């Protein structure tokens, strides 16, 4: 995540700590879902579990008793449900971790779907050998609807099957020094090798439209899965890490907007429209309350924009690339290319963006997409849009000649390699260019959040944000995104409202990963470049 975008100061601080909303009733433990099993009403499609698949649910448990408790245990788990260990830093190594007032940890449950009927209820957790017990509120309790097996073995039949991924730990055991701030790195996830074998479904051949089509659908299903978990915007690498109350010596509420561990404290920007105090689509019941968000740790889970895209590609395919926005976009990891734009590349190595490498988990994300819908040529040492090297700039500033073959609002002709800063948008990304985009393409934005100029008049070409193209539009059809699913955003607060027929993207900012309307303001007017992973990386 680029530090400039991290610097956004979200308006409207969280409301004051709320009084207990249950009056004289206070659950001994607060049990709330961190990762829900596939929801019966999930859309697009309804990824119910098929008998034979393994289900996974992760719950956060807090000792809410204000007392030191003993003999804590899970009780009465539904048939087929067992607790499994997870080496992530926030998981309960044992339930004794919950003995002290206010202590909290995550528990991971595995659901064996070979049982008959649906799996529902709980998990219940008790102290004192079963005397004082709690469970999630009804809307948050385990509920997995099962359909008869066998598990489909085709690729198409498993576009939204993430059962195998969910059994794998998201958190790497390797601490790169950021565990106390950004949390653990992503663990390398793997596609299911059998029953079904999904390793045969991917491709690095862009001409294999069957496989690329499968990957495009799957990555959007993966993003949809995580959008529905209602995470916050946080400077974390993974979804199951929360910023500790004291983060590397700093109270978490005081973490600066550019630092690791920061989480958005944005209250609803539109209370007159939405009425929710916290996270715009919280239901106000069960664990989806402002009290839960603010006081019971919910707001401290989440990922930022480029950690969301890198997390999701790992989740969907096991594909790894850099989670820093600029580096993910292709700028050099030594910081020397922070102002470099695709259309300004020339024959000088220092003025050429980086190329991806499947063997380097910190490489850029795939290839850049050209304005004509093709992708850059990556054979040889240089990558460019066009043919025969014609896509590169020639000449010396201010008389450079640049073909401007990339999808970008920044032309190369105004880019001075000797003084690259403060490059302003001067091109238009046309509807025709947008029609050439494919689901899963990642659009990188250059934008100065502090400028307040999301209308295309921003003053920098520094990459600060990344969004995912869904290929879907606002509407009421089966393949559309219903307007009710479109989240607000804070950069252009008067222009985000969905209109039927608008393109829809997914990104993490404001209050976390969500579907959003692809507005000219903020999104279309600030496109730095577009990268495509599907068909290229593995």
């Amino acid at each position, binding site marked *: 995540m680029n530090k400039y975008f991290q610097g956004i100061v979200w308006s409207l601080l969280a409301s004051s700590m709320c009084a207990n909303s249950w009056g*004289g009733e206070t*659950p001994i433990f607060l049990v709330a879902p961190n990762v829900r099993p596939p929801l019966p009403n999930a859309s697009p499609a309804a990824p119910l579990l098929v008998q034979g698949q393994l289900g996974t649910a992760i719950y956060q448990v807090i000792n809410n008793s204000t007392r030191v408790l*003993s003999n804590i245990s899970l009780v009465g788990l539904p048939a087929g449900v067992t607790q499994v260990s997870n080496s992530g830093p926030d998981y309960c190594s044992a339930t004794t971790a919950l003995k002290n007032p206010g202590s909290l940890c995550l528990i991971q449950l595995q659901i064996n779907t070979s049982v008959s009927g649906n799996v529902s209820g709980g998990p219940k957790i008790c102290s004192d050998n079963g005397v004082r017990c709690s469970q999630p509120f009804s809307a948050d309790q385990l509920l997995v609807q099962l359909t008869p097996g066998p598990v489909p073995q085709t690729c198409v039949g498993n576009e939204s099957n993430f059962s195998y991924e969910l059994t794998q730990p998201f958190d790497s055991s390797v601490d790169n020094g950021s565990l106390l701030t950004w949390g653990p790195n992503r663990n390398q996830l793997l596609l299911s090798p059998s029953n079904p074998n999904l390793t045969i479904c991917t491709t690095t051949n862009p001409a294999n439209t069957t496989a690329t089509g499968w990957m495009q659908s799957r990555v959007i299903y993966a993003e949809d899965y995580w959008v529905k978990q209602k995470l916050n915007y946080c400077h974390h690498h993974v979804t199951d890490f929360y910023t500790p109350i004291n983060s590397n010596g700093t109270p978490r509420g005081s973490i600066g907007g550019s630092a690791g561990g920061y989480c958005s404290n944005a209250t609803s920007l539109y209370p007159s429209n939405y009425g929710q105090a916290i996270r715009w689509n919280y239901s106000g019941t069960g664990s989806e309350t402002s009290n839960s968000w603010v006081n019971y740790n919910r707001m401290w889970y989440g990922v930022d924009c480029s950690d969301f895209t890198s997390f999701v590609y790992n989740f969907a395919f096991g594909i790894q690339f850099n989670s820093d926005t600029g580096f993910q976009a292709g700028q050099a990891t030594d910081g020397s290319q922070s102002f470099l734009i695709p259309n300004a590349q020339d024959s000088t190595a220092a003025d050429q963006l980086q190329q991806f490498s499947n063997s380097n988990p910190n490489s850029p994300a795939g290839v850049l997409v050209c304005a004509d819908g093709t992708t850059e040529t990556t054979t040889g040492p240089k990558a460019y849009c066009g043919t025969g090297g014609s896509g590169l700039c020639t000449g010396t500033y201010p008389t450079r000649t640049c073909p401007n073959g990339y999808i970008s609002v920044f032309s190369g002709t105004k880019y001075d390699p000797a003084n690259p800063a403060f490059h302003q948008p001067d091109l238009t990304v046309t509807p025709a260019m947008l029609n050439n985009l494919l689901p899963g393409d990642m659009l990188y934005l250059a934008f100065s959040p502090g400028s307040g100029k999301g209308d295309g008049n921003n003053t920098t070409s520094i990459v600060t944000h990344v969004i995912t193209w869904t290929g879907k539009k606002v509407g009421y059809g089966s393949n559309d995104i219903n307007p009710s699913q479109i989240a607000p955003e804070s950069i252009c607060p008067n222009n985000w409202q969905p209109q039927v027929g608008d393109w829809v993207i997914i990104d993490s900012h404001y209050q976390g990963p969500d579907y959003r309307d692809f507005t000219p303001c903020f999104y279309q007017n600030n496109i730095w470049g577009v990268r495509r992973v599907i068909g290229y990386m593995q």
Partner: protein
Amino acid sequence: MQKRILLTCFLAAFPIVSFAAFHPVVTVSSGFASANVYSSKWIMFGSYPNSYIGSNHYDAETDLGLFVGGETVFLQNWAWQIGVSYFENSAFNENGNVYQFADPAFNNLTYQYQIQSRRASIDTKISHAFREVWHPYVSASVGAAFNRAYAYTETPITSADVPMTQPFGNHATRSLTYSAGLGVDVNITEHVRLGAGYRFVDLGNASLGVTPLQTGTSTISSTHLHTNELLLQISYVG
């Protein structure tokens, strides 16, 4: 248990009704018993108590009984009955709130259980005949009550609360019981009387059993359970 009590009543009544001066009497009574049900308790679980705050209330349930004995006349127009009786009521409902940690802030559950009382008593009744038809009376009894507390359950206040995994057990308590009442019988035929009356009955104590989860043996109990009863009676007087 019920058969054993009835047999005891019959054997105890036999020598009485066979006494020459006594006329045998059999009375079947039915009506409503309104009980004052209340129980509160602190019970330890691990390091902390839970408090059980009973709802102090009256619960009206049906009451049914059988009296077997004899009647003799003394002075002029006075009659004395003595015999044994067996009464039982439909279960009274006790309920209240569970304060976990004995802290009203953790008012997370309500509780309920049932109390059924069966009584075997020596009953007596003194009546005075008016116009040879009306028999206003006063009555009294003393005996043993077998009070069974059972079916303890907890109900969560919200969907996030969960009852204890092993509830308090069932338990029967034997107590001294006594009653005092008044009413009136009226002759229907030479040998059959209908009557109506009121009586106060002290049923004694009723306690639930323990749960294996608790520390110690203290348990929820209703002490001095008493009822106010309105009864209709039909008697055969030999």
